[in-house]
């Protein structure tokens, strides 16, 4: 096991002077061989993003109502069946990929950015500055994540006509995503959800950044940098930041799963992005009553969420073993 774990990177370095694409390909193949489940996670990630981007070409309009076909089981016409409004479940899952990918990736970028802003200086400078900043993080971490997320979404959405930052709230009922640029319809709500998720998840992430920074700071090359008179910002940006990159990549992948699960949860509760099909939303409302007779209604969106989160966790675990063995067992 221990030998196999590092194969990915070793292949990358050992390939020596071969051209970069060849080395990258070998590293990827090595990763697939050593970590099949991690590779499965990567495949899921590509799939979710790809299906999200190409959804208009993959599935029909998810908002079309086929009333005469309402609540029919999976068939060759409706692969995953239809819901009580006669909407195609497969189309809704395909379009749901857009929200999953957008919220997941948007949140991860925000979390990475925020946790670096808080964690890097806190770990690098230490002392009183660190103490003060960490007490602030303590306060933020004293709330259950979902409480803060729901509260933030509610506060940001309670707003007048011009809406949050003048973005408006978007129409209550989803537009036809097939024609027109659907993105702008959900933009205000998606932004609010990403902001809330990002702000809340950044607290825990900044702790990881901080401890990685402290560990990196102890290296002789940082000391050498101080000795030759490098400025703090130069040391942080040129020496510490590149060296905590592996940790950041692992952290981002694991946060992707967390963010998607959180988005699905608030969608299930009927909060957040309500004017566009999302996976969590498909499990809420009447689905629970209908699931007894029409199990597929709950099964497909539930499995979609499960597979995405499972895949991203697996990918994160595999990346951790390859890139940052120090973190092993921390989750």
């Amino acid at each position, binding site marked *: 096991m221990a030998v196999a774990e590092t194969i990915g990177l070793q292949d990358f370095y050992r390939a020596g002077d071969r051209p970069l694409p060849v080395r990258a390909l070998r590293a990827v193949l090595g990763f697939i061989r050593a970590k099949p489940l991690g590779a499965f996670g990567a495949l899921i990630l590509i799939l979710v993003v790809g299906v999200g981007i190409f959804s208009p070409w993959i599935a029909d309009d998810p908002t079309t109502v086929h009333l005469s076909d309402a609540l029919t089981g999976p068939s060759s016409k409706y692969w995953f069946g239809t819901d009580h409004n006669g909407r195609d479940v497969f189309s809704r899952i395909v379009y749901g990929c857009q929200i999953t990918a957008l919220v997941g990736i948007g949140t991860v970028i925000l979390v990475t950015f925020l946790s670096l802003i808080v964690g890097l200086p806190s770990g690098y400078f230490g002392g009183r500055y660190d103490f003060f900043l960490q007490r602030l993080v303590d306060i*933020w971490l004293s709330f259950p994540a979902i409480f803060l997320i729901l509260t933030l979404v509610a*506060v940001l959405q*309670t707003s007048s006509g011009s809406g949050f930052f003048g973005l408006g709230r978007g129409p209550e009922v989803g537009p036809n995503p097939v024609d027109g640029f659907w993105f702008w319809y959900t933009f205000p709500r998606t932004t609010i959800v990403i902001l809330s998720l990002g702000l809340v998840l950044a607290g825990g992430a900044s702790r990881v950044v901080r401890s990685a920074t402290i560990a990196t700071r102890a290296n002789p090359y940082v000391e050498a940098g101080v000795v030759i008179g490098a400025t703090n910002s130069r040391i942080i940006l040129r020496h510490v930041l590149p060296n905590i990159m592996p940790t950041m990549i692992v952290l981002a992948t694991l946060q992707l799963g967390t963010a998607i699960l959180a988005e699905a949860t608030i969608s299930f509760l009927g909060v957040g992005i309500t004017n566009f099909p999302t996976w969590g939303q498909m*499990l809420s409302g009447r689905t629970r009553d209908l699931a*007894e007779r029409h199990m597929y209604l709950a099964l497909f*969106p539930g499995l979609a969420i499960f597979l995405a989160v499972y895949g991203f966790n697996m990918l994160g675990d595999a990346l951790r073993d390859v890139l940052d063995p120090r973190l092993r067992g921390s989750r």
Partner: protein
Amino acid sequence: MAQYIARRVLLMIPTLIGVSLVVTALLRLLPADAVDILVAGGEVQGGGAAFKEIVDARLAADGKDPTKATITDRARMENVVINEELKKQGIDVEKATETQKKEAKNTVALTAYKDAIRERLGLDKNYIEQWSSWALNAVQGDLGVSLIGSRPVSDELKRRIPVSIELGILGMLVSVCIAIPFGVISAVKQDGWADYGLRSMAIAALAIPSFFLATIVIAVLSRFWNYSFPVKYAELWDDPKTNLELVVVPALILGVGLSGTLLRLTRAQMLEVLRQDYIRTARAKGLAGRGVVMRHAIRNALVPIVTVVGLQVPVLVGGSLVLEQIFGIPGVARYLFESISNRDFPAIIGVNMVVATVIIVANLVVDVTYVVLDPRVRLA
């Protein structure tokens, strides 16, 4: 030791103050016209009462006891108030139509009512004043009055906290009962098929949404066993059977979700301990494998696990929100969700504050337990 605990308790105070600053700041994030939206959306009602209060005040100012005023007195005073509003709007009182009069009455009532809400929320004061008056009341156990139904928030919380504690403790028990035995098996049989199976299941448990699991469980029980959950919640001491019927399944789902993290940690800790010299010594002395694992390894591996169980409190409270919602259990988390959907800000602030306090205290208890269980830990 006593000094350490005292230091930690003292450190709790600024954290609690910070938490209360954050929760009251959430109110301040609201746009200026939030109260208008609450009233216009019909989410809070009571304009009529506000109008009556104004008339009462005017009657009292006129030297008449509002409780004893005759209907004619009251009607006359109402007319005076309405006429004043009409004048303010520049409408000739003599020529005003019935509709205009009605509208004027509504305007007066709503303005008074909105002002009353703003005052109750402390939005008429600046942030520091608002926070200090809220905090002063909160310290005395008064968390304000709910906007809907005018019930004190603390009363509602008192009713709901035991419910949440029951669900939380059961959930935690389930997760410990799953995670520790299976985590130990996983470590002892490292890299065997049991280990791979259990580890995959642990990651699956982390990834499966509780609302999905709950939906499927309800649907399967109903379809194949024709079983449905009790619709109405009953207190544990009133009707133990109904209560347990409703709480056990959510607790199981909650426990399964939590057990993923715990199982992986138990496994990691056991592997760490099994590599230690004293385990090798015990084996060298000729102790049987089972005895070594049970008496020497588990006890030492449990120390960090105890602390992680304590650190799961926020996850536990957060996780119970969805389950309380699905199964109709009137716990604290569900109260928060209801308050958020009703935009009931005093309740939102109250619940967040109470839960955060519980979590901070739990963290303190965890740290102290850790020191007690493992004397090697440096007191910092």
